[in-house]
């Protein structure tokens, strides 16, 4: 039997990348890992960022929480260390805050090709590790093609508003489910896991879902 995992995540969310790794670690130890499917869903941490507006994440965060640069650096250092424990190399000091709607539209295109997981991975890595600007059209097309999306299709989506309805539907569903923070994982439409929990916790959730299926 198949266990379906629906994940709500934003591509600029540091905990989502860490959560993705921890889920994968739990999955690796799961006895029925070959029977698990993962579907990524859109969630925008800040949909109010105007399209095209870019600013350093450090500055955005400092303004949002009213913290001085030294405090922001300390917070980023802490999450960077936790990422390292999962084998991730973050470069948050050079990350750029953007509206992620276009990235999510491209991710939905990739999902249509069965490349949703790879595209989400590419977008998270691009923003969090490589300091790429994930609303840049050329960057989005490059990332999509690197994971196997036909370039013409990626270009068409980037230059249009295609898959906007799918992004909206994901965000609406998250709201209906009461999801206010990400990452958030739903197993078999039944079991919810909030946050970047440990690999052991994900493994327990997988076993519970399997036992109840």
């Amino acid at each position, binding site marked *: 039997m198949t266990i379906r995992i629906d994940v709500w995540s*934003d591509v600029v*969310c*540091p*905990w*989502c990348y*860490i959560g993705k790794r921890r889920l994968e670690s739990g999955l690796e130890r799961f006895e029925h890992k070959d029977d698990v499917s993962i579907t990524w869903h859109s969630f925008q*941490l*800040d949909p109010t960022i105007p399209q095209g507006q870019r600013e350093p994440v450090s500055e955005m*965060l400092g303004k*949002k*929480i009213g913290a001085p640069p030294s405090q922001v650096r300390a*917070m*980023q250092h*802490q*999450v960077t260390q*936790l990422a390292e424990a999962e084998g991730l190399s973050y470069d948050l000091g050079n990350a750029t805050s953007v509206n992620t709607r276009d990235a999510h539209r491209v991710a939905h295109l990739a999902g249509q090709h069965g490349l949703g997981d790879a595209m989400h991975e590419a977008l998270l890595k691009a923003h969090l590790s490589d300091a790429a600007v994930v609303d840049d059209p050329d960057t989005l097309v490059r990332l999509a093609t690197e994971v196997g999306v036909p370039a013409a299709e990626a270009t068409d989506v980037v230059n249009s508003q295609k898959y906007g309805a799918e992004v909206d539907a994901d965000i609406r569903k998250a*709201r*209906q*489910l*009461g999801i*206010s*923070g*990400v*990452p*958030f994982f*739903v197993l078999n*439409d*039944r*079991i*919810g*896991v*909030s*946050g*970047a*929990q*440990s690999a*052991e*916790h994900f493994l*327990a*959730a997988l*076993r*519970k879902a399997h036992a109840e299926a």
Partner: protein
Amino acid sequence: MSEIPETTTPVLEEEPPVEELPQLIILEGADDAPVCENGVCW
């Protein structure tokens, strides 16, 4: 493995009707499991 406590998520009074929404059981793990919320991740 220790048993995981369960709680039920609050159901919002918004459409679609409640019966169309999955009834989620939230597996409680670490209380401080990090999430990004309202644009803030730390």
